[in-house]
């Protein structure tokens, strides 16, 4: 279980995250949604121990972040494709597999490549991959250590609809053993998550299952939730 308590983070004078407290439920897909620039990526980097948070605490399985050992049970996929373009797909995934302490078998590597449908192209250099293929390879690498916690920053950008559906099916399958945290700003994808965290104004503006959130705001899709939030904010400002 991931537990965030009173997390604050600022870069210089600019506050990015302010007093965020939230628990991320185990064996669920939690969607972190919100307009760009609301601190989704910063929050994820704090979770990974890549950024230092100024106040509060983050605990994963009762271990305080940052902790290097925790990274053994975490899979991470960044927004950009973090791949070695002068290596083949297979070499990329093998290299990252070796970075985890325990031995990762060739079978796991193969099945992971199958999962993202890259088996055919594994011997090609990544620089000859299409955008979607690179994204899929990044996803495969994030899954390679069969992580208990899977943190994916906009995983489906640039992936075609058919493959996107199959990836979402796979992600739901992964729920058996893993806890997933996914950022996205594609609102129809948000509906596929089990839990949603809506980020707005440096904090979490709403949370719950997609259905709960829609009912609470009395709207029919997630986009309108953000419009409502905008209106509320405007009214609050006027009232003050």
């Amino acid at each position, binding site marked *: 279980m991931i537990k965030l308590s009173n997390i604050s983070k600022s870069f210089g004078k600019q506050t990015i995250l302010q007093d965020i407290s939230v628990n991320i439920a185990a064996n669920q897909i939690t969607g972190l949604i919100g307009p760009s620039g609301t601190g989704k990526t910063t929050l994820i980097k704090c979770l990974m121990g*890549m950024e230092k948070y100024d106040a509060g605490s983050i605990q994963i399985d009762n271990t305080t972040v940052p902790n290097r050992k925790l990274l053994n049970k975490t899979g991470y996929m*960044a927004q950009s494709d973090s791949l070695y373009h002068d290596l083949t797909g297979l070499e990329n995934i093998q290299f990252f597999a070796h970075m985890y302490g325990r031995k990762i078998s060739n079978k796991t590597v193969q099945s992971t490549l199958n999962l993202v449908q890259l088996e055919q192209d594994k011997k090609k250099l990544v620089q000859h991959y299409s955008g979607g293929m690179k994204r899929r390879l990044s996803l495969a690498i994030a899954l390679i250590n069969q992580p208990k916690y899977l943190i994916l920053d906009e995983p489906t950008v640039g992936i075609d609809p058919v493959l996107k559906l199959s990836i979402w099916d796979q992600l739901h399958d992964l729920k058996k053993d893993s806890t997933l945290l996914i950022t996205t700003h594609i609102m129809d994808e948000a509906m596929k998550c089990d839990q949603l965290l809506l980020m707005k104004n440096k904090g979490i503006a709403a949370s719950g299952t997609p259905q709960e959130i829609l009912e609470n705001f009395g709207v029919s899709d997630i986009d309108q939730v953000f419009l409502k939030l905008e209106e509320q904010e405007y009214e609050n400002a006027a009232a003050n």
Partner: protein
Amino acid sequence: MRMLQLIKRICKQVLRDKRTLALLFLAPIFVITLLNYIFPDPDDEVTIAAVNVSDDVIDILEDNDMIVKQENEIDIKPYLEDGNASAVLEEKDGEWTLTILNDNPMDEGPAIQGSSQAVMESNLNDLSDNIDDMINNMEDMSAGVKDMMESINEMMTQLPPEVAQNMDINMDMDVDTDIDTDIDSEIDMDEDPITVEYIYGDESYTFFEILNPILVSFFVFFFVFLIAGMSMLKERSSGTLEKLLSTPIRKSEIVFGYLFGYGIFAILQTAVIILYSVYILDMEIAGSITNMFIINILLSLVALGLGLLLSTFVSSEFQMIQFIPLVIIPQIFFSGMLNVDTMEPWLQWIAPIMPLYYAGNTMIDVVLKGFTLGEIMVPLSILVLFIVVFVTLNILGMRRYRKV
């Protein structure tokens, strides 16, 4: 284990990048070969144009292996700029003038040296001729005096004895008419006025031979710095460093992986440059080739550490290039080509913070002076210190990307 995989990956990447391989191995060989032939051979002939110069001087110039063109009434500037000669030597009312373009320091030395030597020699010859003349005159004079004496004596004998006695001429017939004419008026011009003794090497040493050991070190430093810095920058800007740090790899494993991964190529490059200089270009080495390796391998690790470190302060390849005039070029001046002891005091303080200062000067010590390993222990230790400092700073610098 992780480090080994990192090294393996780096090797794969470098071997696939043919251009980087060429930069590492062919570029230094190309430049060193070029330099070997680019510096003029001191035995090369220098052409001097002579205006109103006596044949004596021309003879001397030609004796000294210079090509002399006899000219009358030339416009010196265009004449020299057209490359007709390296210098124009002119005599006017006993005043000698040597005109040179002063646009190429390589040509001037021999022209000035040769001409002044020739003029001096001819002056000396004139002087000794004058002395000879003087001696001849004196001999003539003394011969005249002798003649006079003899005629006086003759006259005396012809005078009546009483007159002769009364004349009270106390003529000392022993006037030394025998002036010593053995003055050595021959000034031997065949022998050098000064004998030059070389403590290290001999007179056949060219500028290149003194420069080459420094250049070997310079190339090792420059290319390793550039390649290490660039690759770490690429790792950072492509996001793979972040991805790498999302795995449980230790920050020190990344730094050492890089150090050893690129270190392999640095060592190979060093070997290629040294073996090429020694066996193909016939660089003479007084010391041991092993010591050359030790110096340059340590230096390449320093360059790796520095390149990795500086790459964390830049955000593009262009910014990495901007470090070259700032970090690399100044080190050349302190690497042993110029004498640091005679520099401004504040410059002498800068020298010890430069890795190439130690490597370059130690290379000269080993290659030209034949220093042994024991004698170069101090600079080697300082290079090791540089490596330790840079590696530590790199590991600390990784904290920017991950806090543990």
